[in-house]
């Protein structure tokens, strides 16, 4: 199948891009195109106007200031994966990105594009949840606003942003140095959409968990934080039983059934992967301290 006809626009500034988006009825921004162009080819998406952001300056870049990581929306996944300062400060980004698509799609795919596509199995969305991300969006009509990641998904694969709004930057809160991390997912082939996955961060003081953050993905409508498990773990000595009990809280969440796997299977898988991610995070935390 080939894409339906559309008009192509290549703005050279953010202001021009936002102005274009404000003036069209049925337009989409084109970021890396690794999901959108496939959807256009399959005619899952049919647009009248496509606004290519690839030549808009100032939308890509990575900076770390204390505990705040800022990433421009058009930052390519390959750049994020290969960023040395980020890899040493917070290794879970490179670990998670290893599962994002393939070499060829990471060369083009962007952070902002992945967030807006909002696939239930998107590792980058899960990492955004894990790090209490704040998404900056801009439009010609209403200027700039910020959306906490918890409020970002509106429905299945639908972010809570207006058609004329564009994600420009994402801010992540990095865990303290000395934290431990774990990232596990299961897909039928490496790089495929995960049937289920879990990411965890753990900070410990004097043998007890000071703070745990857990995000799961692939199983339900969108990646989510597992606050029930985080609350259970706070202040606990991370014994096998404690991790098992915390991981069991994911049983109470909603899982979807599709051609790839049943909801019951995803629930079971998510529990196992959550326990493994937590165990890795605790082990790594002990290793560095």
């Amino acid at each position, binding site marked *: *199948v*080939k*894409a*339906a*006809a*559309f*008009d*192509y626009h*290549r703005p050279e500034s953010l202001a021009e891009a936002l102005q274009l988006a404000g003036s069209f009825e049925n337009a989409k921004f*084109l970021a890396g*195109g*690794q*999901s959108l*162009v*496939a959807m*256009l*080819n*399959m005619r899952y998406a049919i647009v009248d106007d*496509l606004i*290519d952001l*690839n030549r808009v300056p100032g939308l890509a870049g990575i900076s770390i200031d204390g505990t705040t990581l800022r990433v421009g929306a058009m930052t390519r996944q*390959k750049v994020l994966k290969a960023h040395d300062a980020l890899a040493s400060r917070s290794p879970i980004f490179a670990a998670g990105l*290893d599962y994002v*698509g*393939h*070499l*060829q*799609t990471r*060369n*083009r795919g962007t952070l902002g594009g992945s967030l807006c596509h909002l696939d239930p199995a998107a590792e980058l969305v899960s990492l955004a949840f894990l790090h209490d991300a704040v998404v900056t969006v801009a439009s010609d009509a209403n200027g700039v606003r910020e959306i906490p990641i918890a409020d970002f998904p509106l429905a299945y694969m639908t972010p809570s942003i207006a058609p004329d709004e564009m994600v420009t930057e994402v801010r992540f809160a990095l865990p303290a140095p000395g934290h431990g991390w774990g990232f596990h997912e299961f897909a039928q*082939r*490496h*790089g*495929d959409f995960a049937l289920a996955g879990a990411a965890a961060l753990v900070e410990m003081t004097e043998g007890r968990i000071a703070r745990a953050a857990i995000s799961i993905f692939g199983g339900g409508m969108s990646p989510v934080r597992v606050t029930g498990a985080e609350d259970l773990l706070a202040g606990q000595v991370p014994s096998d039983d404690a991790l098992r009990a915390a991981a069991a809280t994911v049983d109470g969440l909603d899982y979807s059934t599709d051609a790839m796997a049943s909801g019951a299977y995803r629930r079971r898988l998510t529990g196992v992967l959550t326990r493994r991610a937590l165990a890795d995070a605790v082990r790594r935390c002990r290793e560095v301290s």
Partner: protein
Amino acid sequence: VRLVVNGREIAAEVEPRIHLGDFLRHQLGLTGTHLGCEHGVCGACTVLVDGDAVRSCLMLAVQADGREVVTVEGLAAADGTLSPLQEAFRDHHALQCGFCTPGLLTTLTQLLRDRPDIGEAELRRELSGNLCRCTGYSGIVSAALQVARETRAQGAGS
């Protein structure tokens, strides 16, 4: 659009909805780039854009304006001498039907250039973006590892 394809300067008119793969095949006649799934899964259509392996079905031809594209036809020298990777593919029987081969050659060209120190496990992982239904990947992996060894030896020798 104006772009460089396999060292040749091209100026052409192209409809916005035409992806780079169709442009290369239908407008330039470069049918070495194979289109399998056209939604980014199979990897057969991979080409190099400014040196990076990308799926030509997931990039619009208009986006290649001003870029340098190398297809499988551009990997060998002008006189037809195969690249070391192509030579290794022949030696190791790394293809049977050949449908996936252009995508594998272009992907491995980037991968081995950037990471000549790659080990077998990592290599197999990175090849997850290219489907081969004939070979079971054994020959492909041996060919790539041989080129990686030769590249490292050359690097150490010079």
